[in-house]
C-alpha cells in the first residue's frame, strides 16, 4: 500500500518535472513569461486521449500530442511576439482560459465537463505499461530524454541566442538575429514537451476533464521554475522533487480533504513569496526575474 503511494508520487513528480523543464526553456532561458504553459499540457492530454481512445498506438499518439502542442505554441508566438513582461504574461494567461473554454464547451469532441474517461494505459511494441511501476519507468525514461534534449539546446550556440534574447532583445536584433524566429522556436519546443507531459498525465490518470488544466495547476510549475532558479536545469529537478513532495505530509495531519487542497496552494504561495524577497535568483538560478 505504502509502496503504491510512493510510486504514485514518483510518477507525479516525473510528469511535473517534464512540465517544469519545458517551462524553464521558455521562461528561464528565453525570458518569456508564459502563463499559458498549462494550456499546452491540456492540448497534449486531450489530443493523445482522443487518439488513443480511437485506437491509435501510444507511441504515435504521444508524438502527435507533442507536435500539436508545439504548433499551438508557434501560433501563440505570432500575436505575442511584440509583447513583453506583464503584457506577455496576461496574453498567455488568456490563452489558458481560451483552451479551458474550448475543452469545456466543445462537447462533441471533449465531452465538456464530463471529461474523457477510459483512456488506455500505454503499450509500446507489445510491452504494456499498465502497472504503476512500469509506467514510472516509462515516464523516467521520457523525462531523461527531455532533460538531455533541453540541456543540449541550452548549451548549444542556439541556447546562447535564447539567453541573449532574454537579456536584451534589441541588442540581439541589432546583431542580425530574428528574435521572432528565436522566440517562436523556443515557445514551440517548450510546448512540445508540455504536450508530451500532458499525454503521460492523461494515460496515467486515465481520465481528464477541463478542471485538470486550470491556472491552479500552473502555480506549482511556476514555483518550481522560480524557486529552483531561472536558467538552471538541475535547480528545476531538485525543486520539482521538493515542491511536489513538500505538501504531502498535510494529508496525514487529519485535515479534511477540502482544506488540504487550498493549504497546498498557501504553502506554494508562501514559499514563492519568501524566495522572491530573500533569494530572487532562486536556489540555483543564473538570472534574476525582472
Amino acid at each position, binding site marked *: 500500500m505504502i509502496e503504491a503511494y510512493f510510486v504514485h508520487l514518483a510518477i507525479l513528480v516525473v510528469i511535473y518535472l517534464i512540465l517544469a523543464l519545458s517551462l524553464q526553456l521558455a521562461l528561464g532561458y528565453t525570458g518569456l513569461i508564459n502563463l499559458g504553459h498549462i494550456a499546452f499540457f491540456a492540448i497534449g492530454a486531450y489530443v493523445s486521449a482522443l487518439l488513443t481512445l480511437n485506437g491509435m498506438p501510444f507511441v504515435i499518439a504521444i508524438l502527435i500530442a507533442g507536435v500539436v502542442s508545439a504548433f499551438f505554441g508557434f501560433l501563440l508566438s505570432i500575436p505575442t511576439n511584440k509583447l513583453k513582461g506583464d503584457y506577455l504574461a496576461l496574453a498567455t494567461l488568456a490563452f489558458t482560459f481560451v483552451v479551458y473554454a474550448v475543452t469545456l464547451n466543445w462537447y462533441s469532441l471533449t465531452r465538456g465537463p464530463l471529461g474523457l474517461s477510459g483512456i488506455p494505459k500505454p503499450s509500446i511494441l507489445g510491452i504494456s505499461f499498465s502497472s504503476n511501476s512500469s509506467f514510472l519507468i516509462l515516464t523516467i525514461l521520457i523525462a531523461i530524454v527531455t532533460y538531455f534534449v533541453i540541456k543540449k539546446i541550452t548549451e*548549444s550556440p*542556439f541556447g546562447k541566442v535564447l*539567453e541573449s534574447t532574454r*537579456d536584451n532583445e534589441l541588442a540581439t*536584433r*541589432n546583431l*542580425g538575429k530574428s528574435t521572432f524566429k528565436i522566440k517562436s*522556436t523556443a515557445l514551440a519546443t517548450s510546448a512540445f514537451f508540455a504536450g508530451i507531459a500532458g499525454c503521460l498525465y492523461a494515460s496515467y490518470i486515465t481520465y481528464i476533464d477541463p478542471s485538470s488544466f486550470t491556472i491552479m495547476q500552473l502555480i506549482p510549475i511556476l514555483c518550481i521554475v522560480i524557486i529552483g532558479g531561472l*536558467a538552471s536545469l538541475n535547480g528545476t529537478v531538485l525543486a520539482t522533487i521538493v515542491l511536489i513532495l513538500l505538501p504531502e505530509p498535510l494529508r496525514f495531519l487529519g485535515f479534511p480533504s477540502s482544506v488540504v487542497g487550498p493549504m497546498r496552494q498557501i504553502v506554494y504561495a508562501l514559499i514563492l513569496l519568501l524566495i522572491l524577497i530573500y533569494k530572487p535568483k532562486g536556489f540555483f538560478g543564473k538570472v534574476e526575474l525582472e
Partner: protein
Amino acid sequence: MLKIKNLKKNFGGVKAVDNCSFEVAKGKITALIGPNGSGKSTTFNLISHIIRGDSGKIVFDKIDIAKFSPEQVSNVGVSRLFQKSQLFNNLTIRENLLLAIDNEDTKFWKNILGKNKVTKEKEDQVSHWLDLIEMRHLSNKLGRELSFGQKRLIEIVRTILNPHKLLMLDEPVAGVNPRLRKYISEILLDLKKQGTTILLIEHDMNFALGLADEVIVMDEGKVIAKGTPNKIRNNKKVLEAYLGD
C-alpha cells in the same frame, strides 16, 4: 555608401528629424555632431530602424533600407553601437563576442544536431580582439561584472565583430577615461586604414574633429553644416548652435 534623403521624424509636435539629408562616403570616418537634442541619435535610430521614420529615404549600398527591420539592417552590413550599454549581462564576455560573429546560432536544427560548433577560427577571432584590448583575462566574466569602461570596449569590439560594411558608433568614448579614449581612437583609425566606413556621433568636438574626414552638424533636427573638420571649426552657424547667439 549611405545616403539619407529628406528624412523626417516627429514626436507629437516636436520635429526630432526635419528634412535631413546627407551622405556617408565609403572608407571614410564621418562624424555626426550637434548639441543635445539636435536629432543625432534619432537619426541613428531611424537608420537602424529602432524607430520608424515618417518619410524620407535611407539608401545603403544602393538598397532602400528605410522599411527594413533592425535585423535586416544589420544583415545588409550596418553594425551599430548604442549610446546606452546593450551588453548581454548574464552571458560571459566570450559569449557576448561569439554571438556577433555570424547568425548560424539561430538555426535550431543545425545546433541541436551539433552541426554548428564554436570553431577554433571563431575562438581565435574573439581571443585576438580580447588580446588587443587587454581583456583576455576577463573572457569568462559576466557582462554585468564589468566596469563602465570595460563594457564600452567590449561593446565596441562586438560591433566590430558583427559582419559589416558600415560601423555606426553612438558616442563610443562618452564617459571613458583619457587612456581608453586614446585607445579607442587608435582602433577606429586602424579600421579606417583597413577600409571600414565609420559614422560616429560624438559630443567631444576635439575627439570627433580629430578623427573625422567629414563632419555633418545637426541642430533642431536639421543639417546645418557639412564639410571637413577645418571648415566646421570656423563655421559661424556651428559656433552659434554650440555656444548660442
